[in-house]
């Protein structure tokens, strides 16, 4: 009796998870991550594969919050950048090329986050101008050099736009968007959303770190 009641509860939990859109992806293999159990993360200045020179530091300034809220000690990104600069490294590519053991020696970090900003900024077409940010990240154990986790996330203004206003509506909306995009730093806003999606603890994302009350409870339904 009790067993069937449990089964009923579990299937109800399953329905809720499916409805909320969480449980549909293939689960990430966290074997190395769970063995490493990093406490602190050194976010390195991201590579920039986009044409916008602002991408590296716009993204870097947005990534501390999701990782720290996931429960990790996140090294002060500007102090880290300044330390590289004072040692003669000014390009993100050079900073990311420093051997993991050397990074561990200087910063004492358990893991480093290597990010590549694949897209950043406005794409203009005839009828729309969308701000899109796409980034990829790798979390690497600095003692062993082993990959612990990797992921990719994007955020775009196109997600919210409703193109139901017909052709005239679309043209007006295109003009308004181009003005808004040039006046404000929309790219930085979407870099923030992409960072949140990339680096907060969620299924297939980073695991909860030791400073989170949910540390060690990943995958347990809340």
């Amino acid at each position: 009796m009790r067993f069937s009641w449990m089964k009923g509860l579990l299937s109800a939990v399953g329905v809720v998870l499916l409805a909320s859109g969480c449980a549909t992806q293939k689960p990430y293999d966290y074997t190395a991550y769970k063995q490493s159990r990093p406490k602190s993360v050194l976010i390195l200045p991201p590579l920039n594969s986009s044409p916008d020179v602002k991408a590296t530091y716009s993204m870097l300034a947005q990534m501390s919050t999701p990782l720290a809220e996931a429960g990790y000690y996140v090294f002060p990104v500007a102090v880290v950048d300044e330390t590289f600069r004072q040692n003669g490294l000014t390009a993100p590519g050079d900073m990311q090329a420093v051997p993991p053991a050397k990074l561990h020696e200087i910063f004492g970090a358990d893991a480093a986050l290597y990010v590549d900003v694949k897209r950043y900024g406005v794409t203009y077409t005839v009828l729309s101008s969308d701000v899109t940010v796409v980034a990829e990240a790798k979390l690497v154990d600095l003692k062993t050099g082993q990959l612990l986790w990797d992921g990719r996330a994007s955020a775009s203004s196109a997600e919210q736009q409703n193109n139901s206003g017909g052709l005239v509506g679309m043209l007006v909306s295109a003009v308004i968007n181009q003005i808004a995009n040039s006046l404000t730093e929309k790219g930085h806003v979407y870099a923030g959303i992409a960072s949140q999606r990339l680096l907060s603890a969620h299924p297939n994302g980073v695991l909860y770190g030791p400073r989170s009350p949910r540390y060690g409870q990943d995958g347990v339904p809340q």
Partner: protein
Amino acid sequence: MMMLSRGMSIGAGLLLAAVMSGCANQPKPLYHWGPYQPQVYEYFKGDGAGEQEQIAALEENIQKARAKGEALPPGYHAHLGLLYSKAGKEDQVKQQFETEKALFPESSSFMDFLLRKFKK
């Protein structure tokens, strides 16, 4: 009968809330972030200029966090130390690095590295 339907509607409400919040069933944040990230971005954009305003914004937020009894995030005090060193307020740099180290022992080796360099 009444009891049952009330129970059912509470259950339905809970289910709806769970579905609507999706994965983002967020607990209370661990830290009082205030203007930390925007000020870090200002620092990167300013290329070394404007540190007085950045210091003022971060100092003011320390009072707000204290008043609410909330913890400042990792890196906050170390970043303020960096701004003090840019502004030539040498006497205040060391204190911020020491505070970062005391609040977050994970930062010990890096803070010691910075303090050693700073003494030279």
